[in-house]
């Protein structure tokens, strides 16, 4: 009886759509949970990434060809102009570089006199943006160098004007860069003018960053440039991050609401600089002494 009832169904192949919906829905939810919490699926992801990388290359081909075509038909006069401009800039920069070198020497000497540890020098590797992520939510982009070129998660990505973001995931031939504008992405910064330290957060919008916990009375002005403070051991010291554009001091709140404009232009250039991994800072003693300390408190200590 039961068999005949089953054979009467029109779609007798396998389980019903509803059963499949439940199965694959639960599977998806499970995957999301595992991916978000435990990061167990990175190897699966990189395998799929290798499989789809030809497709991704193909997708970027039209824009690359268009650009190369544009390069081919560039006017000679504009090239000469640009070349002259670059030359002038190089001369200007060379003068500054010379003084910077002498300053660095002096700084090294002073630091060794004071028995302080030397400032880290950082070198970089050029990479090209393959494409930006294609939904309005995610502030991510992919660059054309991966683990085959010794990229590692945590490396800092910048352009000539400022910090772009940080490598968060490495595939064999690609790396994923999370932008500083990603929601809740934090960068420890310092006001260049007076050295006040703070942490700047992404706002989930390409043209905005926010400083959250700055007391109303803090000396910060419109147009102040924020540079990395180098305290976290991830971002090297002194790289421009953002410029303050708006300060709202509302007496009702204990903190000023400060909005900044990121200086690095993730949506402007194709070429980026990936900084080499910095040497690890000495381990924080608190963590070993008291492993039970809440991480929130540690973060606050870092901010100050």
């Amino acid at each position, binding site marked *: 009886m039961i068999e005949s009832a089953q054979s009467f169904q029109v779609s007798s192949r396998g389980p019903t759509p509803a059963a499949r919906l439940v199965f694959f829905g639960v599977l998806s939810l499970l995957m999301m949970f595992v991916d978000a919490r435990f990061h167990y699926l990175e190897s699966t992801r990189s395998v799929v990434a290798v499989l789809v990388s030809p497709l991704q290359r193909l997708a970027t081909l039209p824009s690359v060809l268009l650009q190369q075509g544009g390069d081919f038909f560039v006017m000679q006069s504009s090239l000469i102009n640009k070349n002259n401009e670059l030359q002038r800039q190089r001369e200007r920069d060379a003068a500054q570089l010379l003084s910077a070198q002498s300053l660095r020497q002096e700084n090294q000497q002073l630091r060794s006199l004071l028995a302080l540890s030397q400032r880290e020098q950082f070198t970089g590797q050029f990479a090209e943006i393959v494409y930006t992520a*294609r939904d309005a939510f*995610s502030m991510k982009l992919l660059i054309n160098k991966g683990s085959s070129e010794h990229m590692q998660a945590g490396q800092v990505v910048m352009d000539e004007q400022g910090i772009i973001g940080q490598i968060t995931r490495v595939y064999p031939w690609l790396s994923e860069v999370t932008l500083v504008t990603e929601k809740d992405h934090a960068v420890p910064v310092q006001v260049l003018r007076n050295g006040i330290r703070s942490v700047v957060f992404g706002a989930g919008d390409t043209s905005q960053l926010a400083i959250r916990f700055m007391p109303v009375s803090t000396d910060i002005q419109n147009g102040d440039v924020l540079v990395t403070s180098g305290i976290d051991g991830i971002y090297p010291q002194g790289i421009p991050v953002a410029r303050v554009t708006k300060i709202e001091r509302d007496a009702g709140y204990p903190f000023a609401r400060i909005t900044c404009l990121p200086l690095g232009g993730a949506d402007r250039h194709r070429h980026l600089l990936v900084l080499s991994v910095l040497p690890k800072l000495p381990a924080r003693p608190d963590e070993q002494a008291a492993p039970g300390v809440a991480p929130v408190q540690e973060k606050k200590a870092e901010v100050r």
Partner: protein
Amino acid sequence: MQSLDQAQSEILRPVSSLFIITSVLCALLLNALPWKGLWLTLHPDFVAVVLLYWCMHKPLSVGVGMAWMVGVVTDVIDASLFGQHALAYTVLAFGGVVLSYRLRMFDLKKQTSQVFVILSLTYGMYALVHWQVNGQIVWNYFLGCLTSTLLWIPFSILFQSMRQMRVERE
């Protein structure tokens, strides 16, 4: 509109799985194009439209499982959470498969309004997960749902005519 109805009622030969796979790959490619700025906000989800088309017209060969796999691939391409697109496309395929008999009885204009509902559910599912994980909803995202719906008629006509051409050639 008459020719459209004709295309609907015409008996079409079975589609080779190669054709289905190629169309899905093309849709993935279109999705992976470097969309920027306003276009990024407005860009339709080609994969969703193509998957929905096949789920509606070939519910036995393209179903929830295939949509899920395509979703996983999209997750990797989009660098989104593993399973986020997969879940959304699973819902999409379920809608397409369950309503396939009913949808095929309508003409393209009437189909469009129903397709809009299924696509909004799909987009809503994706946004819901995003909201749960990141705590924000980007309302602009739903504009893509509108443009995807607008694609339904051209894509259906295109696929129907391609399937007819195959019949004539043989």
